[in-house]
C-alpha cells in the first residue's frame, strides 16, 4: 500500500467527445492500491463522464483505463464489474421490484463472487448492517429514506466484491450527522484495504478522506496532489471562485 507499489488504477490520456463537445480531454492519473482519490471540479467538468468510462457504461473516444495493469477500456459494464470495479450511481438507482436485501444479494450472486441464493442473501444482510442500513430488509425502495437508498447502493457495490470502488457524489445531500457517519464509513472501507475513487462536492469530506485529489475543469486536469496543495492552486481557485481574487 505504499506509493512504490504498482498503481491499481491507471487512467492514461482519456478523452471523450459528445458530438463537438470534449467532455474529457487527455485526462491521466494513477491511484495507488488502498488509497482514496478525490475527483473534484465544477459541474460539467467531466467527473461523472470519467467514472462512467471507468466502469464501462461509456466508451472512451481515446486513451486507456487499466486496472492492475489490465486494460479495461472497451469492455462492457458486466465484464468490468467482474474484473473488480464497482460503483454507485450519482442518483441512487434501486429498483423497487426487489426488496432491500435482494437488491444487494443479486450483486453478490453475480459480480465477482457468484454466490448461490442463500449465501448471497446472508452476505447481503451482513453488508447492509456494515453500511448502517436502518430500514427493514424486506422494504422496497419507494418506502425508504434517501440515505438508506444510498446505503443500499453502497452495499450493492460492495457485494460485487470490488478492488476498486467508485463513489459518485455518494455523500451529497446528507445532513451533517449523516455526513459524519458517511465519512466514517468510507474511511472504514479504506482501512479494509479497498481502493476508492470518489467524486464529491463536499470539501470537508474530501479534506478528511482523500490522500490525493485530481481537479478537473472542462474535461482537463488542472491540478492534482494532496488536497491542501491542490486546493490552494491558483487555477483551482479561479475555476471555483472566478477571476479577480
Amino acid at each position, binding site marked *: 500500500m505504499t506509493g512504490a507499489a504498482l498503481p491499481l488504477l491507471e487512467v492514461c490520456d482519456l478523452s471523450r467527445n459528445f458530438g463537438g463537445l470534449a467532455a474529457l480531454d487527455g485526462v491521466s492519473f494513477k491511484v495507488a492500491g488502498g488509497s482514496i482519490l478525490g475527483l473534484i471540479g465544477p459541474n460539467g467538468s467531466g467527473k461523472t463522464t470519467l467514472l462512467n468510462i471507468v*466502469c464501462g457504461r461509456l466508451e472512451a473516444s481515446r486513451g486507456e483505463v487499466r486496472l492492475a495493469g489490465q486494460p479495461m477500456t472497451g469492455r462492457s459494464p458486466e465484464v468490468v464489474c467482474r474484473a473488480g470495479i464497482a460503483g454507485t450511481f450519482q442518483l441512487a*438507482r434501486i429498483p423497487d*421490484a*426487489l426488496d432491500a436485501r435482494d437488491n444487494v*444479494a*443479486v450483486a453478490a450472486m453475480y459480480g465477482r463472487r457468484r454466490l448461490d441464493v442463500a449465501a448471497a442473501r446472508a452476505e447481503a444482510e451482513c453488508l447492509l448492517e456494515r453500511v448502517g442500513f436502518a430500514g427493514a430488509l424486506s422494504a422496497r425502495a419507494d418506502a425508504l429514506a434517501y440515505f438508506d437508498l444510498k446505503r443500499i447502493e453502497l452495499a*450493492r457495490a460492495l457485494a460485487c466484491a470490488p478492488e476498486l470502488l467508485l463513489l459518485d457524489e455518494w455523500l451529497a445531500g446528507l445532513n451533517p450527522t449523516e455526513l459524519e457517519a458517511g465519512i466514517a464509513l468510507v474511511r472504514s472501507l479504506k482501512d479494509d484495504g479497498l481502493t476508492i475513487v470518489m467524486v464529491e462536492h463536499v470539501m470537508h469530506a474530501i479534506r478528511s478522506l482523500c490522500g490525493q485529489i485530481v481537479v478537473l475543469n472542462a474535461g482537463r486536469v488542472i491540478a492534482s496532489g494532496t488536497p491542501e496543495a491542490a486546493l490552494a492552486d491558483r487555477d483551482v481557485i479561479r475555476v471555483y471562485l472566478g477571476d479577480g481574487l
Partner: protein
Amino acid sequence: MLVFDFLLAGLVIGGIYALISIGLNLQYGVARVLNLAYGEFLMLAGYGAFWGVTLIGAPPLLTMLVAAPLAFAASWLLFRYLLHPLLERSRDAGKREIDSILATFGLLFVLQGAALAAWTGTDRFYSFLATPVNVLGIVMSANRLLVLVAALLLSGAIFALLQLTAVGRALRALAASPHTAPLVGIDVARYSAGAFALGGALAAIAGVLLSTFIGINPTIGAAFTMKALIVVVMGGIGHVLGGLVAGLVLGMAETMAALLIDPGLVTVINFAIFSIVLLWRPQGLFARDPGTGAASRLRLGRHALGAIVLALLLLAPAFANAYWLSLLVNILMYVALATGWAFFCGPTRYVSLAASAFFGLGAYAVAVLAPDYSYPLALAAALGIASVLSAFVGLATLRLSGMYFVIFTFGLATLVREVVTWWEFNVAQQAGRHLFLSITTTHIYYQLLALCALIIVLWLIRDKSRMGLALTTLGADETVARQIGINTVALKIGTFVVSCLTMTLAGAILAPRWSYMDATVAFNPNTSFLTVIMALLGGATSVWGPMLGVIPLVLISDYLSVTVPYYFSVVLGLVLLAIVFLVPGGLIGLLRPDGLVAARERLAGLLRGLARRLDGRRTGGSRTEPALGAPAAPSLPPSRQAKRWLSAARKGEP
C-alpha cells in the same frame, strides 16, 4: 411509360401514407400516445363516406367536411377523458407507453368488432369521379388525382401550420421536450389534446379520400395504422417532413415492388425495409425509460393448489366428454402460449407480438414434414428454425425496446406469414396442406399438459435460482443489472429462446388438430393478440398469472363465438381496457389481501378525476374535491356507478 404510370400510382398511395403518418405523428410525437386505434377513425370515416353516398347521395367531399370535425371532437374527448387520465397516473414513461398501447389496442378491438357487427366484413365500394383524366400525358382516374392533390395540399398545410404559426411552434416544442415545454408557458394538456384531435381529424380525412377508390371493410383500420407507424418510425418521430418523404417513398416502393418483383411480396418488402430501418438507426429514435413497478412483487407460493389442479388435469380425459376435452385442449394451448410468452416478456417487460410466428412455425413444420417424413423429425425441424429465428429476435431486444419492439415483433410475424404464403403459392404450388395423422385429441391433450408442466417447472426453477433475481433486476433497470456483473445479453437471449421454443412446441403439438392448414390459419395474428391479452389479464410477472387469464377468456370466447361471434372482439377490447385501468398487475394481483381494495380505489380514482374534470369545466376550473366516500360504494357495477357519478357531478351534487 408503364413505369411512369406506376410511379404516379405509387404517389397516390404514398400521399395517403404521408397524410396518415402526419396524423399519427401528431398523436405520438406530441401527445405521447401511441394510438393503435388510429386507423379505426379512418375506417369509420370511410364507412361514413360510403353510407353518405349510398343512403342520402351526399358527395364524399361533403362527408369529409362533417367527418373531420366529428373525428376531431371524438379524438379530443378520447384524449381528455380516457387517455390523459391514464397518462397522468404514472410518472414512468415506459409504463405510460405500455398503458397507452394496451388501452388503444382495446379500443381497436371495440371499434373493429362494433363495425363488424353492424356492417359485416364485406368490402364496401361506391363510385365517385371514376372518370379518366389526362395529366401530362398519363391517364389516371379523377378520384385518384383528387386524392393525391388533397393529400399533398393537406400535408403541406399541416407542415406550414407547424413551421410558421405560434401554435405550431408550441406543438414542436412539446414534441421536442415535453418536460420543459410547461416551463415556457405551454399548456401541455391543451396542446396535447389539440394535437391528438388534429391527428384524428387527419385520419378521418384520409378515410374519406381512400374510400373513393378502394373498398372499405372493418379490418382496414389496423392495416393503415401499421402503415402509418412504419412511416412515422422511418421518417422519425416528431418529424413531419420526414414522414411526408417516407410516406411517398414507401408508397412508391410498394408499387415498384409489385411491378418489378412480385405483387405477393409487397408486404414482405414493406416489413423488410421497415425492419432494416428500425434496426439500423434506433439510437435517436429509441430512448428507453426503464420502468420500475409493483407488478413483480406478486409472488404466489401456492404450489399445493397447483399440484391438486395438476392431478385433476391428468385425470380429465378419463371423465371428460369430447366437448370438454376439446375445451381443455384450447385452454392448455393458451396456457402454454401465455406462460411461454410471459416467461420472457413478464419479468423483462418487452411486449412481443411474435407468438403467432412461432406457433405457426411449429404447426406448419408438422403439417409439411410429418406426413412425408416423421413427426419427431418435423418437431426437430420446427425447433431448429424457431431457435434461429428467436435468437435473431432476441438480438433485436438489445437494440429495441418499448413500442419499437412491439412493432418489430408484429412486423416479423407478418413477414413470416407472408413468406410462407408466398412460398406455398409460388414454389410449392399449393394453397395449403392436408393433414391426416393418427394423433387423437387425448394425445394432444397429454402432450400439451406436459409442455405446460415443463414451462412452469422451468419458471419455478428459474425463480428459485439467482437467474430469477437477475431477470427482475434486468427488467427494472438494465443499466444497474449490467453494472453488478449480470450478462444481460446472454440472459435475455437465453430466456427469449426458451420462451419462443415453448410457443413453437405448442404449435407443433396442436397441428394434427387441423385436417387442413394454410398459412393464414397457422400464422393467424389473433394468436399473438390473445396470448398477450391473456397473459396480461392474468398477470405476466408470476408463473401462475397467465393461466389465470387464459381460463376466463377461453371460456368467454367459447361461449361468445357460438352465440354472438362479432361481439367476442368487443369483449376482448373491453377486457383489455379493464386490465389497463383497473388491474395493471393482472388478475393475480386481486388475490393479494389488498388486491380488490386497490382495484376499487383505482376505479374510484379514475371516476373522481373524471368528475372533477367535468366539474371543473362547469365551474371554471375550481379545485374543489368531490366527496371521497361516495365512489367507493362497492355495490353498484362500474358502469352504473360511473353514470351516477357523472350525473351527480353535472348537477353539482357532492
